[in-house]
């Protein structure tokens, strides 16, 4: 028995479900195949629940510093179960939301493992039963999973991946976080705010290695001021989980390796694309560096097969996946003049405390490209709202091409910068130059004025610093 569709989407994360909705809007008959929960990792085990947890941590931080604001709070504590439950409830709400969107857009949802079975054919298996679907086009949006340490399995008892870290049954007393990308830094920030003693280790020479060097330096100091221990140039050589503790052997630079004990460890060393067991070999879909090779619109090496999101390579960001989903859906539906995703203008956000947000080139990359630069930097300590909020730490750094005024990159640390970065993303999208930004009026008193001041600083005319 074969159900036939215009488009079959494998995976219903922010890439897959968005692509499905866009395709349905364009009049295609769409099916989505999902083996876990609608909304994928992002909604259920990623972006969303972690932001809910981080919100709890942020409020906990304010409550434990209530006297700074003239408030009194005694016997401050938390119920870990309810902290976790809240995040699960938020995830559940969004999961239900996606279900509703699928229904509203008349998208058929098939539960099970989907795999390419041949040209235009997808086999969906579940609990020993299989059903074959026919699709004119097939979109692979199977996402990615956590990379594992070769020598230690994250069994969820004391050694955790992100998934385990989101539903802790007990609060770690001492926590080793391995890897200092966005995921590692967010968990380090969360658990530290909730009372754990956190050690963050990074094999490269600085944390948040994808960010601008000034961001890495600032965040290291900020985390250390909070009581975290940050070790860079640190290689994890062994990790052994015992009944009471985890023993980690860490080699720092040229020193001899040392064993340290922690109550728990979170492994956040990167992700790998879910390219296995989805039938890519049956059609010879080309891979590159462990992910599916695609063109700027999501076409793979096989006609009629598309791929988007984490499974198609970096940056591994939900909004990149969603945008790729829209572009691919439009290309599949035959829309003329589809603009491919400009990967250079996708912001990266880290929701730690303080937050980090950046878009475009780092200073090093801009210099490497041979551009003559004008760099602006404005500290939030010069921003009235930040001071009034009691969150004066951080800065906004902007990098301009000295000749053309092009905004090459923006790098921010501080309160709510993940909400502020869109101003620069929009500027770059519309190809505004420093001149237009300088002429823009930002409302007062807001944190966003720091965006303006950084631009003025690049032109040598900052007003408030």
């Amino acid at each position: 028995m074969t159900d036939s569709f215009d488009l079959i989407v494998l995976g219903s994360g922010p890439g897959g479900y968005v692509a499905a909705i866009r395709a349905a809007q364009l009049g295609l008959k769409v099916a989505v195949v999902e083996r876990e929960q609608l909304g994928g990792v992002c909604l259920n085990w990623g972006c969303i629940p972690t932001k809910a947890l981080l919100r709890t941590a942020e409020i906990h931080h304010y409550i434990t510093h209530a006297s700074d604001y003239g408030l009194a709070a005694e016997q401050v504590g938390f119920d870990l179960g309810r902290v976790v439950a809240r995040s699960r409830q938020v995830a559940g709400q969004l999961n239900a939301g996606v279900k509703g969107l699928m229904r509203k857009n008349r998208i058929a949802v098939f539960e099970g493992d989907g795999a390419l079975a041949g040209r235009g054919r997808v086999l969906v298996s579940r609990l020993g039963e299989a059903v074959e679907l026919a699709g004119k086009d097939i979109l692979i949006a199977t996402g990615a999973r956590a990379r594992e340490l070769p020598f230690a399995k994250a069994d969820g008892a004391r050694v955790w991946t992100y998934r385990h870290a989101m539903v802790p049954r007990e609060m770690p007393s001492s926590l080793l976080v391995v890897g200092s990308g966005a995921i590692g830094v967010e968990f380090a920030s969360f658990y530290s705010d909730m009372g754990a003693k956190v050690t963050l280790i990074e094999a490269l020479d600085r944390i948040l290695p994808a960010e601008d060097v000034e961001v890495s330096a600032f965040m290291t100091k900020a985390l250390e001021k909070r009581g975290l221990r940050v070790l860079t140039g640190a290689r994890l050589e062994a990790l052994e989980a015992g009944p009471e503790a985890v023993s980690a052997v860490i080699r720092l630079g040229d020193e001899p390796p040392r064993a340290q004990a922690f109550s728990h460890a979170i492994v956040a060393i990167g992700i790998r694309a879910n390219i296995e067991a989805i039938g890519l070999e049956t059609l010879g879909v080309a891979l590159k560096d462990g992910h599916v090779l695609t063109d700027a619109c999501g076409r793979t090496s096989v006609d009629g097969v598309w791929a988007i999101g984490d499974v198609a390579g970096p940056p591994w960001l939900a909004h990149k996946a969603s945008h790729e989903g829209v572009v691919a859906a439009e290309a599949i539906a035959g829309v003329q003049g589809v603009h491919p995703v400009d990967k250079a203008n996708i912001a990266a956000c880290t929701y730690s405390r303080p937050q980090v947000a950046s878009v475009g080139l780092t200073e090093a990359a801009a210099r490497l490209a041979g551009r003559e630069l004008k760099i602006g930097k404005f500290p939030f300590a010069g921003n009235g709202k930040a001071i009034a909020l009691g969150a004066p730490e951080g800065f906004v750094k902007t990098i301009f091409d000295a000749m053309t005024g092009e905004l090459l990159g923006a790098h921010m640390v501080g309160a709510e910068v993940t909400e502020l970065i869109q101003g620069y993303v929009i500027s770059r999208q519309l190809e505004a130059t420093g001149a237009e930004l300088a002429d823009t009026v930002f409302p007062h008193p807001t944190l966003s004025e720091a965006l303006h001041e950084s631009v003025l600083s690049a032109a040598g005319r900052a007003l408030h610093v």
Partner: protein
Amino acid sequence: MSIELTMPALSPTMEKGGLARWLVKEGDAVDVGDALAEVETDKATMEVEATEAGVITRLLVAEGAEDVPVGAVIALIGSGPAQPPTPAPVRTEAPAAAAAAARPPPKTQPQAPLDLPQGLKITPLARRIAELERIDLATVKGSGWGGKIVKADLKPPEIRPAATNAVASAAIYPPPAGVPHETIKLSGMRKTIARRLTEAKQTVPHFYLSVDVRLDALLKVRADFNGQGQAQAVKLSVNDFLIKALAGALQRTPDANVQFAGDRYHRFDRVDVSMAVAVPGGLVTPVIVDAGGKRLIEIAAEARRLGEQARAGKLAPEAYQGGTVSISNLGMFGVKAMIPVINPPQALILGIGAGEERACSVNGALISAMVMTVVGSFDHRVIDGAVAAAFLGAFKHLVEHPFEIVA
């Protein structure tokens, strides 16, 4: 109910034209086939005819408007009674220039605001880059939202093809101070000549070979033919013979009838000769197709007809497109040797000088003969010295043995 009259495409590659002159006014009744306007392209002016009968209700483009895109609506023809005439919105470059000059230059940018064609959409960054690199925006196609020009549409100067950049990037100097002068706007034809010949000189590696050709035999054959009292309208000119000789020489050295094409080249099986014709304000090159397969008198008749049409500005665009080689004759002006510029994408052009009495040494004896200097300009990417020399030798032989031309 109005019918839209749009700017027609007078040739397959035409993208915009100038509305040189309206031949009707608002309120005029027109029939199918009536001439409505004169449209100017880079080579010629042509009339646009009405395809529907009706009344001109509105002229939407002013006389003299330039760079009107093909397909743009230029007038409305109504089937009802005439509407009261409305002032046509002026679509020349003047308002854009005035607006650009009136806007004070942004503080952070230097003092040279771009003179943008009206209606051009461009991002602030792309405008800034265009200013800095003196890019001619008229030739840039916008790929952004709604046709807006974005940074990506302005390729860096190193890889932009010389053709689109050539005129814009040449330094433009003001006239010397104090010299009385008149400034004339470039016509479409002039702009095209400037662009294409700059491209030729910048991108085609020219080399030149010359031969002196004795014309006596040819002049005698020509005189015999023209003076025979044969009742034919066509008189043969020296140029007609030269065109046929050119075709014959290429049939004998086909490796000189070629065109460079990047990683390959084309070798043509037929000789289409572009003849340079001086016209008021410039020059055009109408093409005689298959000069090798046509009789001399056919070539003569065609050359005459094309020359007249060219000088009257009435050449159809198809008439001057194509051509595999060119010939340019300045002999009638007494020029001794004419060293021409190749007409891209061709690889060969023959420059003809004046036939004049010169002293010649033949078998040791000095005689007086009619001699003409011919210079061939060749594209060295695809024609080498030996091939060029063989071709010129064949051409010289045919001119000096004219019966082989007509045989």
